[in-house]
């Protein structure tokens, strides 16, 4: 295998990077390379300019302010797993990061790269979307903030335009009574692409669900919020959310109803629905458990 010819550019900082991405033909940003190099080697992707973000230190931070946790796009999955801020405020994100690829892949692969690859089976997005995360998109002249959901257009297609880069992910802090959990189903215990994934966020107030989000992964061209499932969850008394209870089954059915899975070598569409049904139940119970602990 080989990587076909390209011009390698290594900007010293963010400004230079944005300038190169804007002005070079067919320029692609290289973050951790764990997806991009595979695509280049297998010939799925060609590019004439590769803009390495190796030296762009502006992307490499995890910080907090009053309202949010902010993670730079250049932060690796391993750094997310180890971050005390993440562990404290968004443990489900650390859990999701731990399910990506292998340790070696997590050491190089970045959060920005993972979401920009925009795979339907992306492991970091469901948790983030369930927390209403936003992303900052920069180009040489502008900056905008959009919901992470809006980055995903189709399987492996993002909505970025030429010259644009995702610079950070902004995750609103959750209040007391909130719990998030991520469930992933892959075909082996490690290094498995998600066949189905679910992230559930629940916020409890007065013994019932005040706010919720259910994001399903690998069962549609993009990670997807199950609006129907959320609709059922909100207002449900927590004591009704027990194994095989009627509301929990209805929520899971609703999540399945919102899925549009395909048949592929990892599983048929119906199988994905079946697993989604079970995974959603488990995920709700685990999210509830952590919400109840978080008082």
């Amino acid at each position: 295998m080989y990587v076909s010819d390209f011009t390698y550019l290594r900007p010293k900082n963010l400004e230079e990077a944005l300038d190169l991405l804007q002005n070079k033909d067919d320029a692609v940003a290289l973050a951790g390379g764990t997806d991009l190099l595979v695509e280049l080697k297998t010939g799925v992707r060609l590019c004439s300019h590769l803009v390495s973000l190796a030296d762009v230190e502006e992307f490499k931070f995890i910080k907090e302010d009053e309202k949010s946790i902010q993670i730079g796009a250049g932060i690796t999955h391993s750094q997310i797993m180890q971050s005390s801020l993440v562990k404290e405020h968004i443990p489900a994100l650390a859990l999701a990061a731990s399910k990506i690829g292998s340790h070696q892949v997590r050491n190089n692969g970045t959060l920005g790269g993972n979401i920009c690859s925009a795979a339907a089976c992306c492991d970091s997005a469901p948790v983030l979307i369930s927390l209403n995360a936003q992303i900052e998109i920069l180009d040489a002249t502008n900056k905008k903030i959009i919901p992470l959901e809006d980055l995903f257009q189709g399987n492996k297609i993002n909505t970025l335009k030429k010259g644009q880069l995702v610079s950070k992910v902004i995750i609103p802090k959750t209040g007391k009574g909130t719990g998030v959990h991520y469930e992933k189903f892959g075909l082996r215990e490690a290094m498995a692409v998600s066949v189905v994934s679910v992230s559930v966020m629940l916020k409890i107030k007065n013994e019932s669900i005040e706010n919720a989000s259910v994001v399903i992964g690998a069962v549609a061209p993009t990670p997807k919020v199950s609006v129907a499932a959320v609709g059922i969850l909100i207002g449900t008394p927590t004591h009704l959310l027990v194994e095989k209870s009627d509301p929990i089954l209805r929520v899971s059915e609703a999540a399945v109803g919102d899925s549009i899975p395909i048949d592929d070598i990892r599983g048929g569409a119906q199988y994905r629905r079946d697993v989604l049904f079970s995974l959603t139940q488990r995920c709700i119970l685990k999210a509830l458990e952590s919400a109840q602990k978080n008082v």
Partner: protein
Amino acid sequence: MKKIININVNGDNHEVAVRPGTTLLDLLRDELNLTGTKKGCELGDCGACTVILDGKAVNSCLVLALDADGKKVKTIEGLAGSKHLHPVQQAFVEKGAIQCGYCTPGMIMRVVSILDENPDPTKEEIKKALSGNLCRCTGYTKIIEAVEAAKAYINGMEQPEIEYQPQKSALDLSVVGKRLPKIDAPDKATGKALFTDDLAFPKMLYGKLLLSPLPHALIKSINTKRALALPGVKAIMTGDDVPDIKWGTSPPRYDENVLAKNKVRYVGDVVAAVAAVDEETCYKALQLIEVEYEELPAVFDPMEAMKEAAPRLFDDKYENNINTHIDHHFGDIDLGFAEADHIREERFVGNRTYQNPMEPHCSIAEWDNHGRVTLHTSTQVVHYVHHQLSRILNLPLGNIRVIMTYCGGGFGAKAATTTIEVMSCFLAKETGCPVKMRFNREEMYLFGRGRHKQYIDLKIGVKNDGTITAVKHKAILEGGAYSSFGIVSAYYAGSMLTTLYKFANYKYDGYRINTNLPPCGAFRGHGCPHPRFAFESLLSMIADDIGMDPIDIRLKNAMEPEYRTCNDLDIHSCEFTACLEDVKKKSHWDSKRGNLPKGRGIGIGCGGFVSGAGYPIYRSQFPHSNAIIKILEDGSKAMLYIGDADIGQGSDTVLAMAACEAMGITMDRISVVSADSDLTPIGFGAYSSRVTLMGGNACKMAGEEIKKQLLQAASEILNVDANILEAKDNKIYVKDKPEISIPWEDAGFAYFSNNGPLVGKGHYSPPKGLGGKYKGAAVGTSPAYSFSATVCEVEVDMETGKVKVLNFWDAHDCGTAINPMSAEGQAEGAVVMGMSEVLFENEVFDKNGKMLNADLHNYLIATSADMPEISSTLVDSYEPAGPFGAKEIGEGATLPILGALANAIANAIGVRIFELPITPEKVLKAIAEANKVNSDS
């Protein structure tokens, strides 16, 4: 355009010019000659290329060299000091964690990083942390043990004790029966061991093959003009440029062309070959070769292929695409079934799986000016490569030298001669330069020679007491486009069903069918695992039907020593019953069976294999294994020259141990040269689990010849009769008065001084006349047979169908284990490989015959995180035909796994899955259907 980078590798600063697309892996291997870091998949799926970059373990295949500018890299070469191995390396060597050694450097680097991050990981943490590094040989068991040992070394803790009860047959032996580290392990642990792709020669070119994109087509024209014009391209060859000779593996079925002649028969068939200054130029040239095809209808399903109107792969042979048909009938099955009280027939379907040795195939050919060609290659069988090259190149064997380098695993994938072995010779001749050719992972799958998918109709009749009265077996093997080993696979699929249980009436109807898919061949257990899976499944179902314990029905019919099977195979030593009793006891079978909660299950499966095929692949009177031992002039070292091949299974070590035992010296006194056709006498190599018994006998004989001569020399020094002398532990002494002795080397020195070179020769041929007289009677014959049993326990997630394998308790009759640590390693590797085949593995093709999962990302093999607890026992056994009582274990150990796991799953979910692989999707579907049937009734 090259750019200059500065990189610090293992403490040394390097200033190197690199191309933009060069990966860190290629920089290390090609520019800095640090070939310890291995190239396994090139896509970040296997971890073989793991290095530590600025303190973190990364896959160097997914890092651009330019991105590593200014960084610090640590590779396997930087780990050991000049005198001592790193504790992790030491532990890998001592614990038997290294087999083929190809995953080892990456694995060791990862372990170093694990222990850096957490000096005291738990076993579960180790299993998870290592899951990015695939190993196909060891089943990870001894690797985990090594990590625990390394942890103890580093933390200054006590080493965990190994509990091992030596076999009775080895109690009086000095070397055989000892748990010794493999002799090649230190070189493999340090990255010093050179695999073919680690070699480079002056002026060396690279070669690549153009593969057919179509499953079935006529070649109308090939235009190489544009490709030849590409700078750096040195030669392009097509079917017109190579001899018009058919080749393959099995002489009655030589049906492959060196390069396609007019027709291609599968996506991956070989159309042309190019040699150029580097691989990148080769790839670019391939894209410039214009081939005009006329597409033909293709057929992928063997049932379809057998129909009258189906497209034919070969116009001149294999009518209805039936490549091989076998019709065997022993005893009288009508009579047998008439005697039965209960008869059951079921259809089982296997899966198309690929061996996936971690090392991709690689060959380098170079011609000298005297008309001799030397081929370095990663093969299991030097002699068969030698033989095929002699036919194809039309040269006597003496003008061809085939050297096996270190070989990174085979499992059958490197048993057949490959196109790159042949084409590197032609391209080297054409260009006058050495030519290296390697497969990438995708090309490995497309060259194929993996396991045939079998469709099996099996019928067994039993009496009320469980006695088997008749067996009827029909197998259809989907064979792919060419024959390769397939004719033998088809025979094995039938012949080996008779060796475990005694029954007199047996009918086997076997068909091997050509389809427009990659050719199938010999994969560990050759032809037998799917029929054995079917048999073990059906036998357990029948036991349930008649209310008998599945182990009891096996004990009732279990093979016994000195038995001739209905198809004329002669069983000698057999401790099958001991294996069954051992696993029954240690698994707590009686208390678990029937008492486990829903979703948890336990199952038994059994297996066994030949200890080497009784007859060679092509007619030949040569002894199957041959050894020469030469003693150094000062008596300090024995050099063992053996043609058989160490592909990671540890044969160099085992054969050296047999030779040392026979000579009376310790293992530090021997060095091994193996599998080099110039230096070593012919050996039939590593297939059919033949090396321990056959190579071992040859080495033992050579050793005994040395000993006899040495005792004579010693008798002259000691002035006693040679008959009263013995050699052991580097001494020659009077048997009754051990205090009268001389050092072994003194006798060697004296012998050489008086007589010139001290040489011992040994050879082994299976007994003449093995087997019956019917057509195909040769396949399945062997001097000895192994036996094994395993109990498996699983937990099934009833809502997703996912199977978690908790335990395998296995027991093996492999005769005397020459090296018990290596034998266990074979068994553990077989468990995890078998489990992986049952749960994960399957080649998938689209409707145009293109493989959809020809990588390690989508074709899943088990990781360390998937491995179960494994408890292997080697039962007491002695095989008179084997060296010091030894038989095989490598392939036989795979055979019980499939049935045991399938039976455990059936026990857990209450419903049977008849088709491999047993995926979560199939499990969930089976559970749902069973629930539906239950609720309907």
